[in-house]
């Protein structure tokens, strides 16, 4: 990959890719764009590792008997699938890659506020990933990604501490990225870039950063307590001497519920960019979309107990958390409705990124609404810890965030690399992902309501038909992920030159060359118009399609 990137014949104008060569220029770079590229490579690796485990899970679940691997191995599969996907892929996915690359460009800045801390955060991420991979290679972890005590602290015989250390370390990478974004958005905006003119992608990343900074330390300390308990048997979570396992759940979900919004807000930001660009129209209800990002970030901290309705938490607390969970869905609803309204009387094109945006809106709506099933006390008692929950969170995480990530990658690929991907293949893969996804996860809503518990290595035979559908879907889905990987790599060398603004999009990032120069802009841009001013107001000359 790097050879193509560095081939001087490919990219004429001086840019961040051809400024310097050699591995040292990458590993010691302080350029946010290069760091973003480092992140893209790392999380792609992690995604395929996580995906490999997903494939193995689905392979095992083809038959009800549990005859492919033994139960211990299966337990390690889903645990490592969850840990890798959540902590090492989805949480850094958009903020650390597209966010890292485009937040400074969108606000007209040369770089993030603390470039060295940005690089440090990547190294911390890699250190965390090494621990997590070490845990996998040494023999795996089998606690589930939720590390519930006292199983994780006392009973499991696997590499819990190694994995927890990995997550602990990766948490600090996430914190540092968030810190950097917050300060950058506050202090580095170009002249004229008022808060009311910030692109919605920036708003979304800002809200995400708040969660990262405020939530992550709590999960870090909680995992530290688990590690301590495991190492010294001190009894903090051991009921035999008075520890309360449920306290662990409170502290874990204090972070991990808001973390699910870390895993969706940046995706929502991407969708706001895509819907406006491919409708060529100002966004409908800008202030509401912007505020709803903050609203989700804040209210998101008030609902964690909805993961604990059947744990024996006080019923009054269940009541409280259920009610507030209903509240947190309102800002999400606002976003969905506003995106739809933006398309009204627009000029809609069906390029690959927009296909992903369509997919996101539909699948996130289903995922979100089934979240409300889970927030409804009487129903959650039946469906909690069944495949219904698995289906819910894959709809929001894969149908939502992963689709948004892919959409964003396609959208900004010409800016990042200066090359176009093949549009025909792009649309084909998008449709494949959509179809494969639904085939994989829709049947799980049904098996879930029928009562198939999650984290089951062998299951009752009457669930088999639906599980076979699910496994079939997963192979389609896997193919759908591999195709973009191939054509993206291909396009680095053979893709047509993209030009500065192939989509005729608005936004400062499109006003510089592709790929951008090292300091992003020739001179600091001055902003004189609202975001998404597609219908004129522009002081800049429009760039024609190549």
């Amino acid at each position, binding site marked *: 990959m790097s050879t193509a990137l560095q081939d001087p014949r490919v990219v004429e104008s001086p840019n961040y890719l051809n400024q310097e060569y050699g591995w040292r220029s990458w590993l010691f770079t302080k350029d946010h764009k290069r760091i973003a590229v480092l992140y893209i490579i790392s999380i792609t690796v992690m995604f395929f590792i996580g995906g490999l485990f997903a494939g193995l899970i689905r392979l095992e679940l083809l038959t009800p008997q549990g005859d492919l691997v033994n139960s211990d191995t299966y337990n390690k599969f889903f645990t490592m699938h969850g840990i890798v996907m959540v902590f090492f892929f989805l949480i850094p996915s958009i903020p650390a890659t597209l966010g890292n690359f485009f937040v400074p460009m969108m606000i007209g800045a040369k770089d993030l506020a603390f470039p060295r801390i940005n690089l440090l955060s990547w190294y911390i991420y890699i250190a965390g990933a090494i621990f997590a991979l070490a845990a996998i290679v040494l023999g795996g972890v089998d606690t589930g990604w939720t590390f519930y005590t006292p199983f994780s602290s006392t009973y499991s015989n696997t590499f819990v501490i190694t994995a927890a250390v990995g997550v602990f370390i990766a948490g600090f990478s996430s914190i540092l990225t968030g810190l950097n974004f917050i300060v950058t958005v*506050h202090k580095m905006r170009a002249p004229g870039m008022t808060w009311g003119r910030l692109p919605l992608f920036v708003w979304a990343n800002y809200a995400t950063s708040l969660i990262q900074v*405020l939530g992550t330390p*709590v999960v870090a300390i909680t995992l530290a307590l688990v590690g301590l308990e495991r190492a010294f048997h001190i009894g903090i979570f051991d009921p035999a001497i008075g520890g309360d396992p*449920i*306290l662990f759940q*409170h*502290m874990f979900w*204090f972070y991990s519920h808001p973390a699910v919004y870390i895993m969706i807000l940046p995706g929502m930001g991407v969708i706001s960019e895509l819907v406006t660009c491919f409708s060529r129209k100002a966004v409908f209800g800008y202030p509401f979309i912007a505020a709803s990002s903050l609203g989700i970030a804040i209210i998101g*901290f*008030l609902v*964690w*107990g909805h993961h604990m309705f059947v744990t024996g*938490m*006080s*019923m*009054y*607390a269940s009541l*409280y958390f259920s009610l507030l969970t209903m509240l947190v869905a309102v800002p999400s609803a606002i976003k969905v409705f506003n995106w739809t309204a933006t398309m009204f009387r627009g000029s809609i094109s069906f390029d690959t990124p927009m296909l992903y945006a369509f997919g996101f809106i539909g699948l996130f709506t289903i995922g979100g609404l089934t979240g409300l099933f889970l927030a409804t006390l009487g129903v959650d008692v039946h469906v909690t810890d069944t495949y219904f929950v698995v289906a819910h969170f894959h709809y929001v995480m894969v149908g939502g965030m992963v689709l948004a990530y892919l959409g964003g990658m396609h959208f900004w690929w010409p800016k990042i690399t200066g090359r176009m991907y093949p549009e025909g293949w792009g649309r084909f893969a998008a449709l494949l992902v959509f179809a494969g996804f639904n085939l994989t996860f829709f049947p799980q809503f049904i098996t879930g309501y029928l009562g198939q518990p999650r984290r089951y290595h062998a299951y009752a035979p009457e669930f088999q038909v639906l599980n076979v559908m699910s496994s079939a879907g997963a192979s389609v889905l896997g193919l759908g992920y591999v195709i973009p990987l191939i054509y993206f790599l291909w396009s680095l060398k053979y893709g047509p030159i993209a030009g500065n603004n192939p989509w005729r999009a608005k936004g400062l990032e499109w006003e510089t060359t592709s790929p951008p120069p090292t300091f992003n802009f020739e001179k600091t841009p001055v902003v004189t118009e609202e975001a998404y001013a597609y219908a004129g107001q522009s002081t800049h000359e429009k760039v024609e399609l190549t």
Partner: protein
Amino acid sequence: MHSIPSVRTYVIVWAILTIMTFVTFYVAQINLGQWNVVIALLIAFFKMSLVIFFFMNLKAESPLTKLFAAGGFFWMALLLGQTFIDYVSRNWMPLGKMW
């Protein structure tokens, strides 16, 4: 640029902090029942405010910085408060059907 507080201010703040340390130490030796906890924490909050406003010079910082500082304590209150909602009400009688 921020105004620079005088040495006098700092020393006075330090003196109050030290006195409060002694006060809290001695009050803790007197049995006041539940009030011991309340007083100890109130004094701690007071001392904290002094350090934040004067030593850390939050007084002269921008409203934004103040908002962030306040936010930190607000979020900690969320963590503690909502966790306590569960523990406080665990032994309450369950509500019946017609609540």
